[in-house]
């Protein structure tokens, strides 16, 4: 069985992808790119904030961080292909996955033992 990619590794890859996308769209003149960049700033802030939480070191962090990574990769693919019209929906999915991660990282009511 392949080793499970840790939550922290997923998160770092997600952050790197978001940063790369943010840089790539910085010079794009279309409206979709501008709003995506603003959204990505929020996503990056949220991801950085959870990066030092205990949750990220647990197995429980793997699925939600993997979801963020998947959505970030999807956004990056659209930007690479300059499919601007599809960008808002993809960014929204990334924001939703990030919100889910932030919520889970609070570990409200989670029993660790």
């Amino acid at each position, binding site marked *: 069985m392949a080793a*499970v990619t840790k939550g922290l590794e997923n998160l770092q890859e997600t952050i790197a992808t978001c940063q790369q996308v943010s840089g790539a769209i910085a010079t794009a003149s279309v409206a979709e790119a501008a709003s995506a960049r603003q959204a990505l700033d929020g996503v990056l802030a949220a991801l950085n904030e959870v990066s030092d939480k205990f949750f990220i070191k647990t197995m429980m962090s793997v699925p939600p961080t993997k979801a963020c990574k998947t959505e970030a990769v999807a956004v990056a693919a659209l930007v690479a292909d300059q499919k601007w019209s599809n960008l808002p929906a993809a960014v929204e999915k990334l924001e939703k996955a990030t919100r889910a991660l932030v919520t889970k990282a609070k570990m409200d009511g989670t029993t660790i033992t």
Partner: protein
Amino acid sequence: MAASEVYYMNARSESPQTSLVAKMLTVFEAAGIDQLIKPGDLVAIKIHCGEWNNTAYLRPVYPRALADRIKELGGRPFVCDTTTLTYSPYASRATELDLKMTAERNGFSSAVLGCPFICADGFIGTGDYRVDVPTGYLLKEAYIAQAIAAADVLICLTHFKGHPMGVIGGAIKNLGIGCQSKRGKHNVHLGGHPKYSVANAAIWHPENFKGKANMEDWKILEDCCPYSLFKVDEDTIHWDRARCTSCLGCIGVMAPRGLFEFPEENFAATDAAIADGALGAVTAVGKEKCGFINLAIDISPRCDCVSFSDMPIVPNLGVFASKDPVAIDMACLDKVRESHGMPGSIADDFDLLEPGTRKFETVSATVHGLSEEAQINTGTLNGLGNREYTLIETEPQPMQRHLFALDQRLSGERFRAKFLKFTPFPYERHDGQGFLREQEIDTEFVKAWHGNGDNGGVAGGTEAAEGAKAGD
């Protein structure tokens, strides 16, 4: 050492004798656990009664049926569980009162069970019996709940599932945590241990406390500890770690706030200690007086000790019985590995749907690096049991043994006089047809969706509606 026998029936049911209750009783007898019970014996049936709002714990009908069978054998059964450590700021089973109220809400009462439900370690959890565990891998003594230690026979009736710290929750954990008193649980969770206790293993980050003004719920930091070991000032937090007992009431508060970090080693050492605690429980009762039944159904990723139940990670797998707690857990674990994962479950989230994967250490363990075999391996090393087993497929018993037990006469004999006196069928109405109904309907019509009635609905509805208005 010869392989231990594990008796097994799968989870399929299509007749009274293959109901899971019947299968549980069938493997109980096939494994010879019934032979352990002599007339007058006090028989402890150790179950997990489930946390508040957990829904995956075993249904009370299983211990009920087992208790009925034990009474037939002349034994005096009682069903029991033990008080917990606090484990969280919102513990629901940490005193006898809370345990019994939670258990009753979950269906475990004497009325349901046909025998008493007992909190086996007393009101606070200090009613226990100390035993030496000289072959223990980590622990050298254990504190066993008094009512369990006092029993002539112990039957662990276990829901096999995952566990965040133990990785698996099977017979070994039912013994190694479930049969320990609260004092014993402090021991198994390594309170006071120079290396593995929370006090000595946790990495403490008081610098992550940013002051009361920046933490709206700062009071929980003080109030989560039953020993009052945390003190919060305006800008700092203090922990009297020398007095920490590893009750674990705080870690779900401290860790998410960045105040605690836990090395994997702390969890791994506890997994080993669980098997030593299990050996203590078996020693207290007598190894030859213990039997184990595992029901591998509703196999949730987290234990029945959490206040929720996620969907099962694999389909129901079956019913197991053995006199060896190590072998029975190994057999269940192998079945889980052989199984497909459940689509839509957390096993799916982790891409563990293919057979042959080690599911629990991924989906259940809190931290990376734990093994779903640690309890089993330690239980082999300390002499608790044998991980080598022979799985014996067991045939169903005759159907007659599993019919409605309170009156086994045929329906004609039982109900003839009653139905003559209180005839449920109104023969005298509607020319002997009994009830007002359409003579014929279009059954094909209702098999398909035809919209919201805008095509006219079913013909002939008017007469029935008028009859209803007349109260007919």
